[in-house]
């Protein structure tokens, strides 16, 4: 047994190393060969980088469930100088989420593009950076990981070759590069105080000081939180996301929305758990998460571009996750209530990755076939897809499953995770906010679903592409894979929740289950029915003349490049002021 443990300790680097190896192989294939051989090598590299790590995750799962945590220094150096890593249940879960969605998205890109070895290689590097980000326990290494993650996603957003994509990528690049410089200032502050770079080293050294590091430590922490929160896109810092996610190629959008905005969040929780001020920071982030969920869904309801609508929904759904995540950190993740909240947050992150991935892929398939992205103009989507050679309406079915999941219709996964969130947050103000946001979600998905159905009476007919491209089988397979996972996530949720709960549970409290015992009770179903009906009512209200005028106003609110930086600066100052206020009062 001892032997197996030592041996499997090397497996934890597989999710970082294998995608890099795959990327290197793909680059070599690009440089050395052409045609069929290059394609074969490229696909081999992708299999090494995406499938193999995913399978290896299952080899180490029993050990992690048995309570072992892999940690140490990379290269075996002294722990005060080397880079610490920690592969625990949280890392496993985030890796699982990342590789599942990345695999499906890459497979989809085979049919829909962007194709080519360069795309595959950068996609693999991005995946490697995702698992490196969640594994690291060192501040400067986190900086490097976030930069790798960032630079690969700027390139991937550009790869759709739309002019709008370049602007979106530029805004994203500028604001997050500037944020990373503030992150470096945060590292400077903490290194100056403690002389350490690992999370544990810094926390220990700060605890040893008589004033806990004073204002400098708090501000440094705020700088780090703000820079990471920008990647997560919570309320004041979300401005870059909608454009970038809407303009990216569909496969990349699925990964960006599904995985990329959640990984930094869970990586941040590693820092906040061990810092004394982390619980206050979690409280403020929870509040902004709740507000994000509600405000972003209102903006989403007003959107015209289908992918932008989905992108704003990503902001809204990340708000749900941050809300529960922050509350969990505030209570303390060791406590049973905190653990329930954290598990619910992760469950929603996982399920959101699945249904939002499906939505981006299916809607992407349709808008490429139709040549139109407007939610007000595009109609008869199912017919267009049929014309593109889809005998069995796979795309339509997958879309409907995912849309019902995000609108929390039983028995799909969204119903489970949203109920888990409500159950965990019961009796708090966030509960009300999230319920209101759910109403908005239902309304906007009724609006979005119309693109698949025949037009109403007074709908102006618009021209579509004459001969839509055929839907590639790989695209259908990817859509169906994710949609089935959505359904399975709903049906087998008790097991999934149990596994997630015990992986996140490090203190050994037994019997944590974040799924409410009365999941399918009359009360919950009734609540869902009320939410759905009021969502429909909100939709009807929005399609009136006044409603449309209000939505237009929201849609055309002023947005500017400098606004991104102002909101970052104000968010940063707010976080710093809050931490100082809480510590000295």
């Amino acid at each position, binding site marked *: 047994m001892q032997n197996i443990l030592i041996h499997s300790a090397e497996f934890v680097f597989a999710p970082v190393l294998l995608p890099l190896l795959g990327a290197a192989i793909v680059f070599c294939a690009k440089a050395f060969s052409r045609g069929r051989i290059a394609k074969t090598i490229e696909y081999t590299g992708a299999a090494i980088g995406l499938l193999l790590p995913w399978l290896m995750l299952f080899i180490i799962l029993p050990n992690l469930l048995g309570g072992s945590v892999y940690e140490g220094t990379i290269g075996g150096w002294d722990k005060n*100088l080397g880079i610490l890593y920690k592969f625990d249940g949280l890392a496993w879960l985030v890796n699982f989420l990342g590789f599942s969605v990345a695999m499906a998205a890459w497979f989809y890109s085979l049919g829909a593009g962007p194709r080519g070895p360069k795309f595959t290689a950068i996609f693999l590097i991005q995946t490697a950076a995702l698992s490196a980000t969640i594994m690291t326990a060192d501040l*400067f290494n986190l*900086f*490097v990981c976030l*930069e790798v993650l*960032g*630079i690969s996603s*700027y*390139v991937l957003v*550009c790869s759709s070759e739309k*002019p*709008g994509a*370049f*602007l979106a*990528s*530029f805004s994203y*690049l*500028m604001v997050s*590069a*500037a944020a990373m*410089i503030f992150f*470096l*200032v945060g*590292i*400077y502050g903490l*290194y*100056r105080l403690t002389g350490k*770079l690992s999370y544990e080293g810094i926390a220990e050294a700060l605890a040893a000081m008589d004033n806990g590091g004073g204002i400098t430590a708090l501000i440094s922490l705020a700088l780090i939180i703000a820079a990471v929160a920008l990647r997560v896109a919570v309320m004041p810092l979300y401005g870059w996301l909608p454009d970038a996610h809407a303009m990216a190629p569909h496969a990349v959008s699925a990964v960006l929305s599904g995985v990329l905005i959640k990984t930094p969040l869970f990586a941040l929780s590693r820092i906040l758990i061990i810092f004394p001020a982390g619980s206050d920071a979690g409280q403020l982030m929870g509040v902004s998460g709740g507000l994000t969920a509600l405000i972003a869904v209102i903006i989403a309801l007003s959107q*015209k*571009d289908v992918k932008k609508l989905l992108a704003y929904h990503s902001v809204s759904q990340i708000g749900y996750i941050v809300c529960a995540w922050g509350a969990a950190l505030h209570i303390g993740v060791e406590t049973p209530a905190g653990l329930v909240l954290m598990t619910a947050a992760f469950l929603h992150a996982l399920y959101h990755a699945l249904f939002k991935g499906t939505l981006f892929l299916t809607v992407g398939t349709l808008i490429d076939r139709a040549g139109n992205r407007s939610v007000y103009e595009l109609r008869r989507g199912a017919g267009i897809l049929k014309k593109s050679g889809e005998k069995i309406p796979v795309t339509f079915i997958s879309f409907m499953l995912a849309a019902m999941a995000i609108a929390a219709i039983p028995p799909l996964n969204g119903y489970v995770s949203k109920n888990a969130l409500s159950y965990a947050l019961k009796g708090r103000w966030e509960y009300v906010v999230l319920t209101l946001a759910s109403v908005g979600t239902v309304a906007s998905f009724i609006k979005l679903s119309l693109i698949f159905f025949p037009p109403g009476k007074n709908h102006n007919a618009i021209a579509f592409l004459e001969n839509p491209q055929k839907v590639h089988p790989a695209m259908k397979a990817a859509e169906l894979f994710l949609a089935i996972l959505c359904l399975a996530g709903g049906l087998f949720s008790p097991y999934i929740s149990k596994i997630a709960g015990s992986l996140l549970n490090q203190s050994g409290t037994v019997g944590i289950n974040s799924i409410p015992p009365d999941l399918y009770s009359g009360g919950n179903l009734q609540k869902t029915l009320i939410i759905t009906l009021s969502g429909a009512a909100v939709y009807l209200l929005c399609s009136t003349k006044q409603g449309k005028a209000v939505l237009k106003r929201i*849609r*055309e609110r002023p947005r*500017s*490049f*400098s606004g991104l*930086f*102002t909101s970052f600066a104000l968010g940063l100052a707010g976080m710093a002021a809050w931490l100082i206020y809480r510590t000295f009062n």
Partner: protein
Amino acid sequence: MIDRILLLILFLIGFYGIIVKKNVIKKIFGLTILNSTIVMLFVLEGSKIGSHVPILEENITPIVDPVPQALMLTAIVIGVCVTALALSIVYRLFNSTGTFDIDEIRSKLYKDEE
């Protein structure tokens, strides 16, 4: 002390370049300045505990703190990589809009969408 105040001013100048200047190339200038500032801050402060370069020869001590220097090597390179990518994106933006003004680029590209 005065050095660090000057560095803070330099930092704010870089931030000014990013946020106020309309020309995208100047925004990238600002980003470069920001990046250099934090590198200087790290190296400047890290050099205060020693008087010799961190290359060990015949017990000449005390050396300056080598850790910030190693970190800043990485930071410089990452900064230049990001700059290069940003410039190539700007090149493409210029090719499709013919201007460097961020507001004009924005209104030209997002005109048909809103």
